[in-house]
Structures are given as C-alpha cells and as structure tokens.
C-alpha cells in the first residue's frame, strides 16, 4: 500500500505573528518557516506504518511556491520515499482548491490511505482533509489520536467534544491527525543528507487540470483587540477581595 501525506509550509509555531501596517496580511518576509506541526505528525504516523510493514511507499506532496521544496525535503528526511510539489505562485491557495489538487494527485497515485494534518496553524481552516474525502467519496477519520490498520478497513479513535469516539472506516480513507497520535521524530543528519537524493517531482495546477481561483477575497487583516495586563496582587486574600468587590465575578 502507498500512503500519501500532504504537508504545508507555514510560519513557525514559535514565531510571534505580526499584522502588516496596511492590513493587507501578516508579515512573512524574514520570518522562520517550518512544516505545519500537524503535518509532521502525519509523516511520523506514515513512517511508523511503513516500519511496521503496513505500507510500501510514502509520498509527500505540497502545493505552493518553490520554497515548499524545503518542507518536502524535511518530509523526505523524516522517512518519506519521494515527493511531489504542485508549484504555483498563487499566494491565496484556499482549502477547496488544495483539496482538488490533492484529489488529482490521489487519482494518479492510488494510495490506500491519505494521512494529513487536521489543520494548518496559519489559516486555521480545518477543512482540507474532509474536503478531499468528500471529493474522492471516501470515508474520513478526522482528529485521529489512534489508528489500527486491518486488511480492508481502519479503526480510528477520534478526539471529540466530550472525549473519544471510535469509528471503523472502509479503505481507502482520509485520516487527519490530532496532537496525541504520536510524537514526531527529528530527522537525523545522515537522513537529511539522504533526503537530498530522493526524487522530488514538480507539477502545476494547470498540468493537473485544476482551477485554483480563490472563492473569497480578503478585505483586511487586522490586529485582535489587545488585552491590557492588569494588576499583580500580593496574597490570596487580596485576590479574593478584588474578584469579589472589583470584578464582581465571585
């Protein structure tokens, strides 16, 4: 079985994001970029499935600018076998367009499983996996914290509002990863070197015949309302007095 793992290049999770003064977006120049943390979890899970003998090949795929090759090299260094970049200069790639691009790749590669992050930490949409499953008419196992692979089905434990839910999905399926599925490995130096020699193919939305025209327009991006730091209290008694008499919340 092949596993397809879509990955996204995003502003690093530890960078403080700043809104541009003209409200056209957020500052991305000279900002550290990394693989979206949920995508790392997806790559890790795919590598574990391969190590356990449940998969033969892992294909990492990303859509975006030339720079996404770096993210794909990281995926290769973590254990993916080959990579595909869907290269485009469209700076506003929206989830439906990405899902359509991924469908086109899935149709070509015929993976038994698509494993991907539940959400990218830039747009926070949480859509692409569900959309891909819909376009393929496949089952979806979103927010997965545990997977059990059987011959023609996969049992997925999902994080839901009140706890956990377990579903059995027909294969092939789309799985989206939650934080507790695994802890991703760091790529070792020898593997980073080896990754440079692994195949990385480049295609385009045009070659795949996919229309990626944005469906919404961003009018402005603004700063959130700022919360002012309040007062430091000296003691528990002081705190209770303030909550009772000043804030009136207890």
């Amino acid at each position, binding site marked *: 079985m092949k596993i397809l793992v879509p990955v996204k290049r995003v502003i690093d*999770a530890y960078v*403080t*994001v700043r*809104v541009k003064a003209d409200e056209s977006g*957020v500052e991305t120049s000279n900002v550290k970029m990394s693989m979206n943390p949920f995508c790392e979890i997806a790559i890790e899970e795919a590598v574990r499935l391969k190590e356990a003998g449940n998969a033969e090949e892992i294909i990492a795929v990303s859509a975006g600018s030339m720079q996404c090759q770096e993210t794909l090299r990281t995926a290769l260094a973590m254990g993916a076998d080959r990579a595909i970049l869907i290269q485009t200069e469209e700076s506003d790639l*929206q*989830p*439906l367009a990405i899902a359509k691009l991924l469908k086109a790749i899935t149709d070509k590669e015929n993976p038994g499983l698509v494993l991907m992050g539940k*959400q990218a*930490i830039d747009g*926070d*949409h*949480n*859509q692409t*996996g*569900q*959309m891909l499953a*819909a376009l393929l*008419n*496949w*089952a*979806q*196992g*979103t*927010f997965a914290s545990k997977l059990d692979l059987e011959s023609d089905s996969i*049992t997925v434990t999902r*994080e*839901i*509002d*009140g*706890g956990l*839910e*377990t*579903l*059995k*999905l027909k294969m092939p*399926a789309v799985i989206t990863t939650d*934080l*507790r599925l695994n802890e991703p490995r760091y790529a070792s130096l020898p593997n980073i070197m080896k990754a440079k020699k692994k195949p990385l193919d480049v295609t385009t939305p045009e070659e795949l015949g996919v229309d990626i025209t944005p*469906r*919404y327009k*961003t*009018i*402005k*991006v603004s*700063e*959130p309302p700022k*919360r002012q*730091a*309040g*007062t*430091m*209290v000296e003691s*528990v008694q002081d*705190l*209770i007095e*303030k*909550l009772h008499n000043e*804030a009136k*919340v207890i």
Partner: protein
Amino acid sequence: MPVLVIAEHDNNTLKVSTHPVISAASQLDADIHVLIAGSNAAAAAEEAGKVSGVVKVLHADDAIYAQGLAENLGALIVQIAKDYTHILAPASFFGKNIMPRVAALLDVQQISDITAIESSDTFVRPIYAGNAFATIQSTDSPKVLTVRPTSFDAAAAEGGSASIDQIDSAAETGLASFVGQELTKSERPELAIADIVISGGRGFGSAENFNKLMEPLADRLGAAIGASRAAVDAGYVPNDYQVGQTGKIVAPKLYIAIGISGAIQHLAGMKDSKVIVAINKDEEAPIFSIADYGLVGDLFEIIPELEKALAS
C-alpha cells in the same frame, strides 16, 4: 430564501453550541430552519422548534444518523442544500468534522469559525491562533459557515413555535461505522459554557496532584476544569479538557489559569474570557501579560489557601 442551521444534539437534547449559531443566523435577516438529523430524536426536534427565531424544523429520523457520522450526515445536508442561501453549524468538533465535507460536495469554499457577520457575504474570522482577524467576502453560493459559539449570544431556548417537518433520509453511504465512544463523565458544568473555568498546566507535575488540588477548588467555585496542552500531553487529564487553538475555545466570566505559562496556542482558546486570573511561580510567565489579576507563587500552597478562604 431561508437559512439552515445544522443542530448539534445527542438525540434527546440540543447541545449548547447550537443556540449561538441560531443567534448568528438571525443576523442574516431570513427565515431560520433547523436540521435535526438523528435517531429517535423527536425530543431534540421539539426543543429546536421552541428556540426563539426558528420557523421550521426539518427532522430526519434514521438509525444511520444516530452518531452523526460525517459521510451520512453530509449526504443528507447536500440533498436539502439547494433551498438555502446559508448553511451554518457550530465550529465544535461536530461541525468542523461535517461542514467541509458538505462544502466540497457543493463545490463551495467554507468559511470557518466566524466571530462576526458584517453582511450576508462578509465575515470576520480569526487566523494564526487569533493573532490576527481576517475580514473576508465570499463569492460562493450557498455560503457554508461554521460559527464560533462563544462569539455570539445564545438564542433564547423559549419563544419559537416552529413547525416540524419530517424529511427523507439520504442513502447510507456504507463508508464508515460507529464502534464506540468514551465520554468523560463529570458532574461539573460543561467546559464550553461554564461561567467559571479553572485551568491547570504542567506546573502540577502529576495527574494525582492535578486532581487532588483542582477538584476541591472547582467544586467550591462551581467551575469547570480545563487544561493546557502540556497537561493533556503529560496525561494529567483527558484530551477534551484542552483549551487552546486546536482544542476548546472558552469565554467564561472568570478564567483562572494555574501553573500555565501562556503559550500563544493556549491564549487563543481563552483570551476572550471576561476576567482572567493567572497564578504562576514564574513572574515572567507570558500569561501575566493578559491577566486582569496576577498572583506569583507556588500553586501547591496557593490552591489549598484559596479553597479554604472561599469556604469561609
């Protein structure tokens, strides 16, 4: 044309996430219909019909909707979508799971987690863990939206007198089946709607300490218990306690963060709380920069003292 709200319910009662979505829908100046898809869910349908502002309830009753599987529920929503300008659901794990599937099947780009409605096609939503807010204008029809429940007042549970129409099921897709669920049992208020939330972080050091210290305080305050990702990852509490960018978004009247340093991913889930209290031994912790009241000290001493003082 009317707008459609996808209700979240457990077949008996509506989940509290549904009422703010009905309130958001009322800003669109159209008749509001509510879909109850469930199994033996007549009680939930009746309850939905009484919510203020609802004019019609569509009730699809079928065993295939008992657990809200996205594949089957998505097919049902798509079947009725053509009659609506907007389709809305809560941005809870339920809505997040189902709505993108619906949007893709309708070939529209969903707008996720809206916090304000500016007009029938323009919405505000947080991006980058709430470090920025995007105002976006959708060109799609229908518009598929998920709504952040804490950003809208809940519609009143009484006041409506909607008709209840039984509707046909869509075909069972056969793609997924329900195996089981493990729900966290608690007598305390639900985290998403509690007036007071006390949240703990890695500072507790163990699950035993977390429970031993937090439970009496929560009981004393009538509070729900939340946690940072660090505390959940360390196994102190179950996953559904997690407050943050990818966990639960809460906005209680009082939020007390104890032993939580305040990573931006955590702040994204609680910074709309009315009053924030931070208790941390590290006076440099980022949580203090957004707290209304800060207390520097050892949580192992402060919590028992706080609990005792509240008792008197």
